[in-house]
């Protein structure tokens, strides 16, 4: 088992090294991750501490594009005098946190429902899979919007800002669970009828326990691929929700929120406030998607 795993690992390593695009994508991803998670150390300013802001710094253009630029604000400032670069670093961090949390939430929901659906079968399976089918008909963003709206209906709109981040994570998680559930379910259906499961049942072991032990390792590969591809989607969905004004609030801005705030200044020609967060978002998602594509091909050569 050990040598087998090592062989797989080295194969993946080889296919990683031999693809320049993938290496570049991985480097870019690592760079952005580092920039985001080290923001408190690296960022030149603390953009959301009102005490450090000065309106006289407001709407400074980026240094390379205008003589009015100031090197302490390399990418310019917004109308409040906030440093765009620092805001991007903190915003990316939030976007990534929400993205990862949402993917993990989707994974947990999907794997659990997939196990139940495949193992229990019958009416429960039918209901879960029917809901999955219906949900799959709708784009994830719409599902996330609906869930967000429903939460706003249940709790008061005012309190919403405080828990916004959890609502967004939950909404995105609930809109991406279907793929995991389907993968796990089909794997369970295959394993369920294997003899060791029957045998386990005969000697009174909990077959569910055995399923979890044997099925989960089997689906690690596909689940990882889905998760990587979903990470890009989750980041986009969060950004879209925040851009639409139903995601993270402006007191705690993610990349999407920054773009929305900057969008108001776009018409007057102050393009940098929204463009730089936008470019960061696009580059991040592109890099993550390239990694996801590569991982899918590397783990499943038959697909291409």
């Amino acid at each position: 088992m050990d040598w087998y795993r090592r062989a797989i690992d080295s194969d993946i390593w080889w296919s990683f090294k031999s693809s320049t695009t993938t290496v570049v994508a991985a480097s870019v991803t690592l760079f952005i991750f580092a920039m985001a998670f080290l923001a408190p150390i690296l960022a030149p300013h603390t953009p959301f501490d009102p005490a450090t802001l000065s309106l006289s710094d407001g709407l400074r253009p980026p240094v390379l594009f205008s003589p009015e630029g100031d090197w302490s604000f390399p990418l310019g400032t917004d109308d409040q005098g906030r440093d765009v670069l620092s805001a991007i670093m903190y915003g990316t961090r939030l976007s990534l946190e929400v993205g990862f949390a949402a993917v993990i939430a989707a994974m947990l929901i999907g794997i659990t429902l997939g196990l139940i659906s495949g193992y229990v079968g019958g009416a429960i399976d039918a209901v879960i899979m029917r809901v999955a089918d219906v949900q799959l008909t709708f784009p994830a963003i719409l599902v996330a919007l609906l869930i967000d709206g429903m939460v706003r209906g249940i709790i008061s709109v005012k309190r919403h800002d405080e828990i916004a981040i959890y609502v967004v994570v939950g909404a995105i998680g609930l809109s991406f669970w279907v793929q995991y559930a389907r993968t796990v379910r089909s794997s369970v259906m295959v394993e369920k009828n294997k003899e060791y499961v029957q045998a386990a049942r005969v000697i009174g072991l909990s077959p569910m326990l055995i399923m979890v032990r044997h099925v989960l390792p089997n689906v690690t590969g596909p689940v990882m691929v889905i998760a990587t591809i979903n990470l890009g989607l989750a980041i986009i969905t969060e950004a879209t929700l925040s851009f639409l004004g139903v995601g993270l609030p402006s007191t705690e801005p993610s990349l999407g929120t920054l773009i929305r705030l900057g969008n108001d200044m776009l018409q007057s020609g102050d393009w940098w406030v929204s463009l730089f967060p936008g470019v960061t978002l696009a580059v991040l998602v592109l890099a993550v998607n390239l990694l996801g594509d590569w991982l899918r091909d590397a783990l499943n050569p038959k697909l291409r």
Partner: protein
Amino acid sequence: MLAFVLRRLAQSVAVLLTVGVVAFFMFRYVGDPINAMVGQDTSLQERDELRQKLGLNDPAPIQFLRFIGNAAQGKFGLSYRTSEPVGRMILERMPATLELSFCAAMFSLLVGVPMGVYTGLYPRHWSSKLLQAVSLIGVSLPTFLVGILLILVFAVFLRLLPSFGRGETVDIGWWSTNFLTTKGLLALIMPSITLGLFQLTLIMRLVRSEMLEVMRTDFIKFARARGLSNRAINFGHALKNTLVPVITIAGLQLGAIIAFAVVTETVFAWPGMGQLFIQSVQFADIPVMAAYLMLIAFLFVVINVIVDLLYFLVDPRLRSQGGAARVSGH
């Protein structure tokens, strides 16, 4: 064939019912319909009377049937936000969304399919590789970002196109259209491109991979061995065989376009259903959300039925076997 159509219809009804249940629970239990109708100072007793009168104390299944019955007639109650009838609010905004979605769908199909065919036929050509790389970027760009970039370039810097609103519209009965004025048409350009771009890249990549797959099949090899011209092979044989999966996805994408209009309409301040939906999410305007959900589900189901009918036109195997064997092999 009849059995197939009936089964598909039954599935459609099941989807609509599931969505109906969700919408009903939202409408009835997430929000409180009474709040929308009465003022702050209405007494509890009056509220209870109203509740009784509206049948809100009836058993849930009866309320559900009433809800579905009303929905079928376009009655979705009153908006919490504006106190207008939800049905009329949506109807007023529907033409804007449908025209935008139509243009976006046309754009993505008319550009995406030829690009997919080209890159599928000449996968080794440098231009195909370039298109393929660009399409990956297209898939990674969030819709709203595309819209912002277009506005920045064509509205802010070049001042060529309007950046928000529908421009000028003409009313034909209750339907207001963009298609009859120059300003209206100009206003359509950027939103359509924004909305269609993502689907365009999807369609292009799908047609390309289907094309590559079909070109490897035996019947294409045999067609070559029969000495048919490249033109007949590529467009007569290969393209037609990619149609079934392409129609499927294109149908789903059309639905997705209508749903994604939510984002585009917000970027371009386009007064359509999507914008209405976002406002209703922001204000937790449950009746509008429920109605929008039902309407979108209905549109999806209609599109699916049309897609199924198109299958019959394309694939003779379905015509004769009643769809028992949908063997297109995926």
